């Protein structure tokens, strides 16, 4: 519709003299421009810039252990940013993602402790609860046709209240009891919250999970039917339905994926800190959304990647820790983030416009 608004070539008539296999109107764009048109390239440049900046400004960033901390910080945001990004590509967003993490951790913790069960029982039930919350979000969305902002704002408030209320009711406290001496804790910690040694540097296992999930999400998005459907329901929901894409299924499962992410991060928090503070998680949902947007996902859906939010989350982790290593006042962190978010969005916009112009 844009620049190449011309008559379609008549059937069978080679429009360009000589070369029948080309229509002669689309000149091949230079490799650099084609690269820039990818959604994750803008944020890659941004991540490199932030890294270089702190590498120069804060000498202690250059140590391996500092990088491990940065990566750990990034991974806890990044694991959630992935499903949030997929959901965003699918045209919706989830404001309950932040508190859902805490809900999941609380469920596992309290269930195991109060009933004196193996912690794995709590872990499994928490997974079911998290997936259920996701499914409920998605179901309400497709049934009511309300914007996801409203639906998930509702769930956000409900979960926030339930987290606090139920925890106080059951434990008489705002935090859950320490579960570190319970059956199965060791194995669960190994899975969700252990560290391993790389050349003398302790790296958290969440970094590995983060990259594994990112690879998986990228594969699903680019190489499977389901990925195709995600782009379609986010790009044009009515068109998608009209050509036979199961829109309801896709939207609900996307919300359930966010539930899965919330469960995973919730389990990580539980098994690293042994207890859960019931009031936490508020505001995190916006950090996830910001990481996805910085990662090149279009807030309105239909465009984005899974690898972009990886760099987006890395930028968050880098800035968060970088400020500390540089010895600056960490009070300014959020202001820095805001500037970064706006900057990244503008760069993305500019890159996309430049690169897709023909």
């Amino acid at each position, binding site marked *: *519709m*844009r*620049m*190449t*608004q*011309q*008559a*379609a*070539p*008549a*059937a*069978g*008539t*080679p*429009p360009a003299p000589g070369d*029948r*296999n*080309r*229509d002669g*109107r*689309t000149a*091949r764009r230079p490799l650099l421009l084609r690269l820039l048109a990818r959604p994750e390239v803008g944020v890659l440049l941004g991540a490199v810039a932030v890294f270089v900046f702190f590498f120069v400004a804060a000498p202690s960033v250059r140590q391996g252990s500092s990088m491990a901390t940065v990566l750990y910080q990034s991974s806890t945001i990044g694991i959630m940013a992935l499903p949030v990004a997929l959901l965003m590509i699918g045209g919706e967003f989830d404001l309950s993602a932040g508190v859902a993490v805490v809900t999941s951790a609380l469920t596992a913790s309290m269930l195991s402790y109060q009933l004196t069960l193996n912690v794995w029982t709590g872990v499994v039930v928490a997974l079911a609860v998290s997936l259920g919350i996701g499914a409920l979000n998605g179901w309400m969305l497709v049934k009511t046709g309300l914007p996801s902002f409203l639906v998930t704002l509702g769930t956000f408030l409900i979960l926030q209240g339930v987290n606090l209320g139920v925890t106080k009711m059951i434990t008489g406290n705002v935090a859950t009891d320490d579960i570190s001496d319970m059956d199965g804790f060791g194995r669960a910690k190994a899975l969700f919250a252990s560290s391993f040694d790389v050349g003398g540097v302790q790296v958290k296992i969440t970094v590995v999970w983060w990259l594994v999930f990112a690879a998986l999400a990228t*594969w699903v998005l680019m*190489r*499977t*039917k389901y*990925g*195709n459907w995600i*782009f*379609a329901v986010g*790009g*044009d929901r*009515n*068109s*998608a*339905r*009209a*050509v*036979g*894409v*199961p829109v309801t299924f896709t939207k609900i499962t996307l919300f359930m994926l966010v539930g899965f992410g919330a469960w995973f991060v919730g389990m990580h928090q539980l098994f690293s800190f042994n207890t859960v503070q019931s009031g936490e998680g508020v505001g995190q949902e916006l950090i996830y959304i910001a990481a996805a947007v910085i990662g090149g996902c279009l807030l309105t859906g*239909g*465009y984005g990647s899974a690898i972009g939010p990886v760099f987006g989350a890395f930028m968050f982790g880098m800035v968060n820790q970088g400020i500390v290593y540089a010895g600056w006042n960490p009070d300014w962190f959020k202001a820095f983030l805001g500037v970064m978010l706006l900057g990244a969005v503008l760069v993305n916009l500019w890159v996309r416009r430049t690169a*897709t112009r*023909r």
Partner: protein
Amino acid sequence: MTDDTATTPGPAPDATAPEDGRPLVELRGAGKSYGNIRALHGVDLTVRPGRVTCVLGDNGAGKSTLIKIVSGLHRHTEGEFLVDGAPVRFSSPREALDRGIAAVYQDLATVPLMPVWRNFFLGSEATRGPWPVRRLDIARMKRTADEELRAMGIVLDDLEQPIGTLSGGQRQCVAIARAVHFGARVLILDEPTAALGVKQSGVVLKYIAAARDRGLGVIFITHNPHHAYMVGDHFSVLRLGTLELSADRGEVGLEELTNHMAGGAELAALKHELAQVRGVDVDELPEEQDLTAPGPASSEGTP
């Protein structure tokens, strides 16, 4: 040259489709109400293989409602809807597609930001590999999309370009090629020429004829009687949600069709009144008795 398209081999529509001209799709007194608004009432429509049924009407006449019923987007609330002679009630476009009824919508049902080949296969993706690693067969999909588009006379260098960058006519042809490729027996085209220039409209009309020659039943919805008359075998004119005219090609001329489209019957009735008003030229308006084509069989008697 043009015959390229008609003879192009491809996953042709079911060649054993009723050759006897048995209707593929039939509406009997069908209608649709949205709450207290009756958008469509008492409409009869028959679609036979190898024939183009044109549905004409002004804006708001109920054309889009009609195709939404046939394509499975909405359910009819009165009358009967038969596919291959058996009554059906579709609850989603998927079911209609499975019965070989494919619609090409006014808004094209394409996702603008997605690449051409992904749009071509959207909802019917080709895959390979066993389940946990079942993945898109990208090479095959790109090749097939390219072949089918070339058969339609569209040569694209880059199937990766977002479909939103194609011209309106090209997108129409992609949508038609897609429907034909996926074995449509009945092709519904909702105002495919409405937003197009003269030349692009010609291209689209050519593919309508090509689809008909491949044995598909075509429902061609338009408000342009000239386009309809170029390819149509049967003409149904809708007005205010009911059938105003239902006639075969032999029974109605272009001029009369145009008059019906413009609300000719009413205009004729008004002619005498208008003649009293100075400055209104009524000579060109048809007389009522000139409109000889048969109206719908049961315009009054339908329940």
